[in-house]
């Protein structure tokens, strides 16, 4: 399939009507998979209506590819049913774990970047890709603690992509947040991660906590993240860029303005390359 640059938004409840009543100037929308992994009713109907108008990416938060116990087969079967119905542009989830011993944290928890964790994540991503019948994208997390490990996060991602064939959803804000929190250079990360595997980009904002940067996704994309986006874009092939806002959802025109800024940066990158 020919890849080309796309620009989209995360579809959030305050904007449902706008996306259904008008032709919003996006190339795709992304939804949280779990919000639509329900038996029926208005949510599934709405997603079918959205899908009839826009390509849809499914972005999950509960696959838990880092669980030492393996992946949840019932969860994967339900996601597969949604995938078969929606025929999404991408299916993604996070490099994290959420579940152990029947406890589900509903938070994206950090992994140690060890050989054991790599084996676990690779086995889980392989199982998920088999169950879904397609390649997944794995998103780099933002994190607030780091463990002693044999690898850096970018080394871990390189090995994961090489061993499973999965793609990457690069969250530029997450790189920035983790870089500040753990004291590494975000540009070193971006230059060393597997650029050829990136298929989608998230752009978002963050907040300053008491001690650490917090990945709140409730702010406009800050200059620091735009700078990193402009830095990494020339190293990537055509990718799908998306503004991701999860809280304090602003009017749609504000998000579209941010998306226009992304388009402008991508346009300048393309001009320079030509």
């Amino acid at each position, binding site marked *: 399939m020919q890849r080309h640059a796309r620009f989209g938004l995360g579809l959030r409840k305050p904007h449902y009507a706008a996306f259904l009543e008008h032709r919003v100037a996006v190339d795709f929308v992304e939804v949280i998979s*779990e919000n639509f*992994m*329900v*038996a*029926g*009713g*208005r*949510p*599934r*109907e709405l997603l079918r209506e959205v899908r009839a108008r826009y390509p849809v990416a499914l972005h999950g938060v*509960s696959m*838990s590819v*880092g*669980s*030492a*116990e393996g992946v*949840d087969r019932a*969860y994967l079967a339900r996601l597969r049913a949604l995938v078969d119905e929606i025929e999404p542009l991408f299916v993604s989830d996070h490099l994290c*774990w*959420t*579940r*152990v*011993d*029947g*406890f*589900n*944290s*509903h*938070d994206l*928890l950090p*992994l*140690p970047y*060890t050989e*054991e*964790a790599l084996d*676990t994540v690779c086995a889980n991503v392989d199982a998920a890709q088999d169950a879904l019948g397609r390649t997944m994208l794995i998103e780099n997390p933002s*994190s*607030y*603690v780091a*463990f002693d490990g044999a690898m850096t996060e970018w080394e871990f991602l390189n090995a994961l992509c090489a061993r499973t064939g999965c793609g990457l959803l690069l969250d530029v804000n997450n790189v920035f947040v983790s870089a500040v*929190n753990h004291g590494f250079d975000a540009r070193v990360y971006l230059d060393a991660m597997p650029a050829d595997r990136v298929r989608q980009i998230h752009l978002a904002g963050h907040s300053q*906590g*008491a*001690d*650490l940067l*917090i990945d709140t996704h409730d702010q406009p994309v800050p200059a620091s993240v735009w700078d990193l986006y402009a830095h990494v874009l020339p190293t990537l092939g055509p990718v799908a860029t998306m503004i991701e806002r999860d809280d304090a959802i602003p009017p749609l025109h504000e998000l579209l303005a941010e998306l226009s800024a992304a388009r402008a940066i991508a346009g300048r990158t393309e001009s320079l390359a030509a």
Partner: protein
Amino acid sequence: MSLLALQRDFAAFLRDGDADRAAAGMRVYQNNYRAQLCAFLEDGFARTRDWIGEAAFEDAMIRHIQRLPPSSWTLDAYARDFPDTLGLLYPDDPEVAELAWLELALAEAFVGADAEPLTQADARNIDWDEAVLHFAPTFDLRVVATNVADLWAALAAGETPPAAAILPDRHALIVWRQAQVSRFRLIDADEEHAILLARSGRRFAEICEAIVALHGEERGIEMAGSYLGRWLATEMLVAPAIE
């Protein structure tokens, strides 16, 4: 330390670790964990929160999170035990748990399985002597002791709710989805009895006989017809099987 051991320790900290002695990053995770669950419960039980007040609701959420950590991949499942927690916290105020149950049932009906409703036109072609009624997959029923239906209606309308009261007679709440909208209705013991018979697999003719036995032929047939008409009109039924 193995990955499994690390994850078990991490999960134990999220549930009840001492934040004061933890690193800043671990405090962020513990706060995120609790804040996410609280936000979900606040969103799902807004009327219950309005009824018992913000401080009491916050205390109930904290007690619930301590009592029952989440186990499912979907947060929707986490809501299912909250009415029980409220029942334990408010044993002398049964309307609190009943109000929470109603909010939960409405939310579950909203995303329940789809099914084609039985229409009045379909009903004309049914052999009612042999038909067994099937309720929509979103249908739920619970006996209630209090005026929770009135409380919900007032709170939803932003009006001052009446005082909580124990109902003088046996009543039940039924909840289902009609045309993609969750609905509920308070029913009396006679209609509850008819529904329970139908859900136990008794033919409609047998239900009519049971009502006639209790209320006499004229009144019984009138009641059965009225129930059926209302159930059909409000899309509570799906296609019955002939057995």
